[in-house]
């Protein structure tokens, strides 16, 4: 069965703009915000959200944006082959006392976010941690929810949701496909 496109380029752009506005609204301004993307696609989305935050507020968010690799903190490391690691880049301000917005592409079991919370603990003590995702497809295995969601996408566990981003995939799209292995 062919993949069905559920979000196109313009839909993704609108969703990210809305998320940026919601982040600012909930945090009453840009001060003390740190945007951390989870590699690889969460990191790209974090950069896009940060660019929008910069446009909206007229401030430079590049220095408030970073990446958080969670590989070493995953609970399934010993069950799979060794996963490649990715760089963690924390803004010079650090995360102590900041409101950290974690950004990922898909929220599914919640295990990646659990690992991210552990990884953050090793780096400092944020005042608060929020979660922004482009797609929430349900099927949580842990008590974790997102604060900012681009699109709620009810899906069967057997379905495969793909996030395509221009930076690595040549185009922006979210597709869903029946029954492919995951």
């Amino acid at each position, binding site marked *: 069965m062919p993949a069905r496109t559920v979000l196109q380029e313009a839909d993704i752009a609108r969703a990210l703009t809305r998320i940026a506005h919601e982040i600012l609204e909930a945090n009453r301004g840009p001060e003390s915000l740190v945007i951390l993307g989870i590699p690889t696609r969460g990191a790209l989305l974090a950069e896009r959200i940060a660019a929008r935050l910069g446009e909206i507020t007229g401030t430079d968010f590049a220095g408030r944006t970073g990446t958080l690799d969670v*590989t070493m903190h995953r609970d399934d490391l*010993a069950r799979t082959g060794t996963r490649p*690691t990715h760089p963690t880049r924390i803004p010079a301000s650090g995360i102590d006392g900041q409101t950290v917005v974690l950004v990922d592409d898909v929220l599914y079991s919640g295990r990646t976010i659990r690992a991210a919370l552990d990884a953050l603990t090793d*780096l400092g003590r944020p005042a608060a941690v929020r979660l922004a995702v482009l797609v929430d497809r349900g099927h949580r295995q842990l008590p974790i929810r997102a604060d900012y969601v681009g699109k709620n996408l009810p899906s069967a566990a057997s379905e495969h949701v793909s996030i395509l981003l221009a930076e690595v995939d040549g185009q922006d799209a979210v597709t869903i496909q029946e029954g492919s292995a995951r």
Partner: protein
Amino acid sequence: MRHLLTAALTRDEAIELLDIAEDMDQIHERDQKKLPALRGRTVVNLFFEDSTRTRSSFEIAGKWLSADVINVSGKGSSVSKGEDLRDTVTTISAMGVDGIVMRHGASGAPNVVASWIPQIVVNAGDGTHEHPTQALLDAFALRRRIHGDASRGKGLDGVRVAIAGDVLHSRVARSNALLLPALGAEVTIVGPPSMLPPGIGTWQAAHTTDFDEVVDSRPDALMMLRVQLERQTGTFVPSAGEYIGGWSLTPERFARLGGETLVMHPGPMNRGLEISSVAADAAASLVLEQVRAGVSVRMAVLYRLLAGRTDS
């Protein structure tokens, strides 16, 4: 890759390890230097030869990844009571450890040990044969100094590296002569005729006995090998004076390098013998960066070999 016994890696394998090491290296900047990846794993450092820096570097690497690290040295153990190597390693293996990091005076010892036990084995130096993590850390330090934050994914293409000194007794030289060309570097081996190994013509490296010619060619990096007084069984040069005259990185030769050549040394240095303090402490010296890289690279190796399933 199940064990790390040799530096004869493919370019892709080497770059994968160096890239993981880049990510590991960030831990040096943290207050909390502990990652949970090897929680519940046990690593034994089994050292039949004296070592301070390699053993402590492996120990720090394992501990920063949350592994339990146990040091067993040849001296003071049942090894000195005459226990057979096979009995020693199968005993440690039977205790249920996950990995053995091993240094032994006999070339090839880690290879046979890897065939006796089910655990992963990391060669931390075997005789005059190989020292693969040293070659990896040399490549890492060199790549980082050349490419900085843009190091990930890159090799050492076109980098001219000269390795100078007692090549015959040097496992560091042998491992580097395997790894650096795989990463694209152009390697030249230089040393006294009595200290160049037989068969050097088969190495993927140029070789010469004229150190001054190498100095005047101003390589991108010059790796000075330690004169291994403890490993020499015969007389290889008539005197220290002759060695210094021909093959030491003296202040005068260091000046002729022109300041651009990076100076490397695997340590511990014999200051005043193979390397002068002027060269060892210069801004172009990579010596302390090599030591730091050692922890990052060994973390990458332990992570790569032990973090995933180890039964395949």
